C-alpha cells in the first residue's frame, strides 16, 4: 500500500508544494505549527481540492488535476480524526460512533463497537451529547467515530494533543494494533517526536509548506538536524532487534541486536518477533572502560565513528556497535575529560528504565521515551 | 358542481343572506354566495369562476363583463338602488343643508372627509360626482381621505378620525356611531344601481328561479328593510 502525494496549492499568503510517497504502514506528517500539515491531510481526505497535482492511495488515484479527476470525500473511504473533534452536536455519543457504520459494507467492517468503546473508555459517555463532554472526551469519541467507519486509510490530525498521558498510553497501543493487525494504512499528523517514533514506520517532515525530508523513521530520527531544536533530546538511534527471551522473574525482555543484547521492561511480543527500539541520544552515556558497580544494565561496546557539535554545551557522538549505530549526547566537557576522539573504543551505557514505555503491546517499535 | 353560486358585492351581505333564505323553497336550494369587491368578482368571472349569477355594486363592472360577452344580456336587470349621505360622528354638532356650493370645506375644517376611493370604490365615485355637481369638489379635494371601501370610510367617521364622511344610506342607518347630516340629491350623481345578471357560462337549472325570486315582492321587502331602494318593476 502506497500513498503518493504530489500537489501544489495556495491559501492566501501560504503556499504548499509537497511531494512525497510513502509505502509505510503508518506515515507521520511531522512539522511545526503552521507548516501545512492540516492542509495536506485535508487534501488527502478530499476536503480541499488542490490547485494542481495528484494524490494516490492504495493504487487508487484520488486526485489528478491534469485528468480533471477528483474523487469526492464520501467515496474515498478515508477516515479522518480532526484536530477539533467535530462531533455531531445533535446526536448522542453512541449515534456519533455508529454514524460511519451505515456506509460501510458489512464484510468490510473490522472495528467492533464494544471493543472501541472499551478501549477509549467512553462507555459511560454513550448517552451524552457532545456539548456535555470535556475536551479530551470529545477527542476520544472522535477517534472512535473514525475507527468505527472501518476506513481503508485513516488520517489523524494530532488526535492525542488534548489527551492526558494515561489516555494517550491507552490509545497508542490501539493505533499500533490497528496499524499492525488490520494493515490499514495511517497518515498521522503530529508534532510530538515520541509519538512519531513510537508509531510511524515512515516520516514526512514538513516545513513551511515544503517537504524537508522523507524516509523511514529510523533514518529521519538519526538526522538530529531535521528535528526542531527543542525536540532534539528526543532524537536518537533506532535499532532493529528481535526478542531473544523473556526474563519473567525480573520482568524484563532481552532483545538481540547487532550491537549486543539489550534489556528492556517486559514485552508481550513472542520470542523471535522483531521489535524496533529507539535509544534516545540523551539517555546514552559513554564510558571509556567497562563500568562496574553501576545500575545501568545495557553496556554496548563499540567504536566512535562521528562527533558533531550539538546544542549548547553538548556534542553528539555516534558509536558503531558492531554495525549498528548508537547515538549519544554528552557534554563537551566530558568529551575533553575522557579524551574522546574518532576511532576510540568505548562503551555505550543505557539504563533499562530509559525504555519506560516498552511494555505495551506486541510487534511494536519500542523506545526510550519520556 | 351543481350548486347555485352567486357572486355578490360585499355590501349586500345582510340583505342578500336574508333573501337567500327566503327564496330557498322557491328555488329548490339555497344559493352559495361569495361576497367580495365587485372588481374582484368581475375579474374572477373573466378568469373562469364557476359563478352563475353576478350582482355588482355598480354598472361599470357589469358593463365590463357584458362587453366581454361573459353574461347573458337578456338576464341583466337593475335590481336595487341606494342613496349617498353625508355623515358625522354621533357626537358631532355639524349641521348643513346639502345644496349647490354648500360650505363643506368649513365643516371639515382641519379634519378630513372620508369616502370611498373616488376612482375605485363605487360609493366614492358617486360622492365625487355629487360634490362636483354641487360645485364643492375643488374646495374639499385636498381634504379627502379615500378608503378602500365604503365600510372603511364609515369606520373613519365613527372613530372620529374624520369629521365627515360620504357613505351609502344603507350603511349609515345601521351604524350607531354616526349620524346622518343630509342626503345628496338624487340628481346630483349618476343613479346608484346594483345590477344583476346570469353569467354566460352558467348552466345551473335553478339560476332563473333565483333571479326571479330576487325580483319578487318578498325579496323586495327584505331589501327595503336594509334601506335599499328596489328598482325592479314588479314593485
Amino acid at each position, binding site marked *: 500500500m502506497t500513498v503518493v502525494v504530489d500537489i501544489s496549492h495556495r491559501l492566501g499568503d501560504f503556499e504548499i508544494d509537497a511531494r512525497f510517497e510513502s509505502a509505510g504502514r503508518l506515515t507521520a506528517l511531522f512539522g511545526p505549527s503552521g507548516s501545512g500539515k492540516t492542509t495536506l491531510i485535508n487534501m488527502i481526505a478530499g476536503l480541499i481540492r488542490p490547485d494542481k497535482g495528484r494524490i494516490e492511495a492504495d493504487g487508487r488515484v484520488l486526485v489528478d488535476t491534469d485528468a480533471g479527476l477528483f474523487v469526492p470525500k464520501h467515496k474515498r473511504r478515508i477516515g479522518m480524526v480532526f484536530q477539533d473533534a467535530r462531533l*455531531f452536536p445533535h446526536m448522542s455519543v453512541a449515534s456519533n460512533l455508529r454514524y460511519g457504520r451505515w*456506509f460501510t459494507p458489512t464484510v468490510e467492517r473490522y472495528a467492533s463497537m464494544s471493543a472501541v468503546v472499551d478501549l477509549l473508555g467512553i462507555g459511560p459517555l454513550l448517552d451524552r451529547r457532545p*456539548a456535555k463532554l470535556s475536551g479530551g472526551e470529545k477527542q476520544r469519541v472522535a477517534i472512535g467515530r473514525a475507527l468505527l467507519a472501518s476506513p481503508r486509510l485513516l488520517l489523524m490530525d494530532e488526535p492525542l494533543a488534548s489527551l492526558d498521558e494515561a489516555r494517550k498510553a491507552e490509545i497508542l497501543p490501539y493505533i499500533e494494533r490497528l496499524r499492525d493487525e488490520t494493515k490499514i494504512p495511517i497518515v498521522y499528523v503530529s508534532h510530538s517526536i515520541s509519538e512519531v517514533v513510537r508509531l510511524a514506520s515512515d516520516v514526512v517532515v514538513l516545513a513551511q509548506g515544503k517537504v524537508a525530508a522523507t524516509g523511514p523513521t529510523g533514518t529521519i530520527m538519526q538526522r538530529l538536524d531535521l528535528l526542531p531544536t527543542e525536540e532534539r533530546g528526543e532524537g536518537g538511534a533506532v535499532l532493529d532487534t528481535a526478542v531473544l527471551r523473556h526474563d519473567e522473574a525480573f520482568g524484563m525482555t532481552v532483545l538481540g541486536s547487532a550491537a549486543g543484547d539489550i534489556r528492556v521492561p517486559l514485552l508481550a511480543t513472542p520470542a523471535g518477533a522483531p521489535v524496533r527500539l529507539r535509544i534516545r541520544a540523551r539517555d546514552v552515556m559513554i564510558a571509556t572502560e567497562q563500568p562496574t558497580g553501576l545500575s545501568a544494565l545495557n553496556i554496548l561496546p563499540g567504536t566512535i565513528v562521528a562527533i558533531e557539535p550539538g546544542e549548547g554545551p553538548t556534542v553528539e557522538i555516534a558509536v558503531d556497535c558492531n554495525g549498528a549505530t548508537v547515538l549519544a549526547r554528552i557534554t563537551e566537557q566530558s568529551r575533553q575529560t575522557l579524551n574522546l576522539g574518532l576511532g576510540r573504543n568505548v562503551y555505550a551505557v543505557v539504563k533499562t528504565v530509559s525504555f519506560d514505555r516498552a511494555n505495551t503491546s506486541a510487534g511494536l517499535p519500542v523506545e526510550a521515551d519520556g | 358542481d351543481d350548486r347555485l353560486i352567486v357572486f355578490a358585492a*360585499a355590501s349586500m351581505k345582510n340583505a342578500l343572506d336574508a333573501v337567500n333564505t327566503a327564496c330557498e323553497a322557491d328555488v329548490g336550494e339555497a344559493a352559495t354566495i361569495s361576497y367580495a369587491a365587485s372588481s374582484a368578482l368581475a375579474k374572477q368571472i373573466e378568469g373562469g369562476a364557476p*359563478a352563475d349569477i353576478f350582482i355588482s355594486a355598480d354598472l361599470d363592472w357589469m358593463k365590463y363583463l357584458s362587453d366581454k360577452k361573459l353574461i347573458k344580456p337578456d338576464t341583466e336587470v337593475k335590481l336595487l338602488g341606494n342613496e349617498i349621505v353625508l355623515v358625522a360622528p354621533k357626537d358631532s354638532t355639524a349641521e348643513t343643508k346639502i345644496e349647490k356650493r354648500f360650505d363643506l370645506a368649513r365643516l371639515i375644517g382641519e379634519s378630513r372627509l372620508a369616502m370611498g376611493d373616488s376612482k375605485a370604490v363605487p360609493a366614492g365615485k358617486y360622492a365625487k360626482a355629487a360634490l362636483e355637481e354641487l360645485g364643492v369638489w375643488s374646495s374639499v379635494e385636498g381634504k379627502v381621505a379615500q378608503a378602500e371601501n365604503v365600510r372603511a370610510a364609515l369606520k373613519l367617521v365613527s372613530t372620529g378620525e374624520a369629521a365627515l364622511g360620504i357613505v351609502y344610506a344603507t350603511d349609515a342607518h345601521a351604524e350607531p356611531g354616526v349620524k346622518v347630516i343630509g342626503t345628496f340629491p338624487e340628481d346630483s350623481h349618476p343613479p346608484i344601481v346594483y345590477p344583476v345578471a346570469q353569467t354566460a357560462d352558467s348552466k345551473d337549472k335553478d339560476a332563473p328561479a333565483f333571479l326571479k325570486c330576487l325580483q319578487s315582492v318578498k325579496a323586495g321587502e327584505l331589501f327595503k328593510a336594509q334601506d335599499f331602494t328596489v328598482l325592479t318593476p314588479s314593485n
Partner: protein
Amino acid sequence: MNWLLDLTPDEWNAVRLSIKVATVAMIASLPPGILIALVLARGQFWGKTLLNGLVHLPLILPPVVTGYLLLLSFGRRGPAGAFLAEHFGIVFSFRWTGAALACGVMGFPLMVRAIRLSIEAVDRRIEAAAGTLGANPLWVFGTITLPLILPGLIAGAILSFAKAMGEFGATITFVSNIPNETQTLPSAIYTFTQVPGGDAGALRLTLISIVISMAALIASEVLARRVGKRMDIE
C-alpha cells in the same frame, strides 16, 4: 366561551377550512422551501439574484396583485392552471386547493428566509466530517444538515402557518370567497366587516383565529426548545 363558539355552520366551515388550508400550505411549502433556501444559501449560479427576487415577490407586491397574477396563471384559463388540470388533474381555481396555493405563495418568502438563515449558520466543517465517514451529500443533508436546521424549519413552518391564517387579499382575489370551499377565516372576517353590525361577528372570528394561531405558535416554541436543548452548546 359559549358566545365565542356559537358559530353558524358556515363559520365552522371557515374555521375548519382555514386550519386545513394553513396546514396544507405549510406542509406543501416545506420541500420547495428547503430546496430553494438551500440553493440560495449555498448555490453559486447565474440567476440566483433572479430566483431570490422571485421568492420575495409575494412580499413586495400588494396581495391583491399577487392574487390577480395567480388567477391569471393558475386559473382555469391560465397557462399553468390549464396545464396542471389537463396533465395532473390538479385544479386550483375556486377550490380550497387554490386557497392553499395562495397562502403558501404568500408565506413562501418568510419560510425560505428562516430556513436559509439556519442553513447559513450550519458549521460546514461538521458536514465535511460526515462526508469523510462515507455519507454522500444527500445523506449528509438528511442526517446532519436537516437536524441542525430544525429550529429554522420550525420557525419557517410556523411563519408560513401564521401567514396563512391571516392571508386575505391574495386568496379572495384568486379563489373568491365561496362558503365551504374557499371561504377561509380572513375572508369570513372581511365579509363581516363589510356589513352594518358585523363587528361582533368579525371580532369573534378574529379571536378564534388568534387562539388557533397561538396554539400553533406555542407548539412550535415547545418543539423548537426541545430540539434546541438536544444540541445545547454551553
